[in-house]
């Protein structure tokens, strides 16, 4: 079925992973992604790389059904996570999104809320947790986001008082506080300086033992540093939809790419 993109070995927990089948996406009449197929294994980091405008972010936003929020946007094909059809008609987009966390390009904590409130906001709206446990959850999430030590003494200060890198880690904490199974990251370091970037990368590696992570990046070094698997997307001509060209273990994609386009891109000759 996925002959074009040979998959890594079939571990037992493979069923928990993300699988995207024949996914196409449009903005109005403009097709931005075509015939995307991909499997991101459970509790591994999968990177999507490719030149800008190739539809990486759109693929990500199709996974947690954020794409459909854009007026005129349309999706075709299937997205399954843990064997569940994300687009099943009886499934609420909101519950999909609370199961699939997302971290954005720019840190976007809620500016009127404190660090603590930002960390637990997802839990609060989900109303799954008694109030008494909120602090415990905040601590766990902030610790996993490797932020706890830096903020534990000023939890009730505004989130915007943090530095950019800290804010992004707070956003990661916010996303994992609701205990998702899959974490989508859309170029999470593109607005950060190298030191902050390094901390985030470290963090991604650290949480990969619990969460399935899909990260979009245009930084190939980042992909090699954090990911287990890599998919390369590109567009052939301006105006064409983006396609997945090659998918495989990160070491394979960067060490021995099969497709010439991938080879050209990862060796820095294009893009």
């Amino acid at each position, binding site marked *: 079925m996925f002959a074009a993109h040979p998959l890594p070995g079939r571990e037992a927990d493979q069923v928990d992973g993300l699988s995207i089948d024949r996914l196409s996406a449009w903005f109005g009449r403009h097709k931005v992604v075509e015939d995307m197929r991909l499997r991101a294994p459970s509790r591994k980091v999968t990177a999507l790389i490719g030149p800008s405008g190739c539809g990486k972010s759109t693929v990500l936003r199709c996974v947690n059904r954020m794409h459909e929020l854009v*007026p005129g946007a349309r999706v075709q094909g299937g997205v399954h996570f843990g064997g569940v059809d994300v687009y099943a008609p009886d499934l609420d987009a909101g519950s999909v999104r609370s199961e699939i966390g997302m971290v*954005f390009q720019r840190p976007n904590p809620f500016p009127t809320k404190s660090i603590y409130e930002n960390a637990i906001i997802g839990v609060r709206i989900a109303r799954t947790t008694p109030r008494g446990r909120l602090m415990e959850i905040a601590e766990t999430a902030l610790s996993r986001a490797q932020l706890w030590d830096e903020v534990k003494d000023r939890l009730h200060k505004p989130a915007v008082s943090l530095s950019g890198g800290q804010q992004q880690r707070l956003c990661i904490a916010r996303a994992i506080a609701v205990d998702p199974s899959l974490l989508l990251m859309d170029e999470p370091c593109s607005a950060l300086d190298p030191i902050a970037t390094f901390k985030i990368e470290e963090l991604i590696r650290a949480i990969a033992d619990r969460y399935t992570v899909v990260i979009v990046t245009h930084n190939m070094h980042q992909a090699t540093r954090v990911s287990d698997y890599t998919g390369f997307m590109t567009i052939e001509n301006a105006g064409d939809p983006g396609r997945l060209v090659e998918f495989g273990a990160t070491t394979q994609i960067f060490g021995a790419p099969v497709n010439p386009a991938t080879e050209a891109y990862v060796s820095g000759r294009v893009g």
Partner: protein
Amino acid sequence: MSPASAGGIAAIERHPLPIALRGERRRLGDSVFGAAVALTGGVVLLVLAAMVVFLVLQGLPAMRHYGFFSSITSQRWAPSEASATLSTPNPYGIVQFIYGTVLTSLIGMVIAVPLAVGAALVITDVAPRRLRRPLSSLVDLLAAVPSVVYGFWGLFALIPAIRPVVDFITSTLGTVPVIGVPFGGPFFGVSYFTAGLVLAIMILPIIAAVCREVFRSTPRNEKEAAVALGATRWEMIRIAVLPRARSGIVGASLIGLGRAVGETIAVTMVIGNAVLHINPSIFDQGATMSSVIANEFTEATEPFHLESLFVVGFWLLIVALVVNMLARVVVRRGVSL
């Protein structure tokens, strides 16, 4: 209003550019033009200052005669007694007008603010995109209907429509001792409540317009952050839109309040014009600062009557100035109306 162009020429000249030499005549024309526009700019300040000065000057005889604060410590407005009781307590107390203004504005705000905020949210975040512009234009249209038309409509359409409801309230809640007092009957149509209701409709579009601009300025990435956490639309509004807009909503409400405080003709037509004292029920007749001026101004022949109306005008101006200055400070800039 892109920040890049915010400064105009003055901003450009603060960063001097190589400018070609100019002729004397052109320079003269230039400075004349500059002086002229500076003068017109000054007119704005002049008008406002002149308003305060003239209202004070006109009201001064009454203020002097009765004492500066006497009018705002008494609630007896009886021009007919002015000549008879010059030495006895002040017949030009205006507390009941301040009360009327505050009460009607309050009723208006209580009704209009939630509706305006709701309408603005629908326009920015709930309605299908292609309906947002028409919806917003329609709500704006409410502000285009002249005050006198609202008053006329209030008198003939609104009063008969609310009469059964109010009669029900006065005959149930209104009969309860103590807490029923503000809802007591009988209801004769014109009342504080009717005026407040008309005010609500009149200030709703103003508050909605300001709120709309405020909500619209919510950064997209904050809304997405909420949605990505699985928030429903209402949760997204509550988390991402409303907290950020809090001061904007307060400012919008203050602008609406400023308008409600000063609204005259529509209120005059439906409030009942009872000037003597504060009536305890919201369904009773009353008067506001602006309505008493509209009613009595051109015929104030009794001693100190006209002067006292200027005193009312002065306090109305002060209230309006304070409310509007607060509003502008809170909203800061960027929203017209």
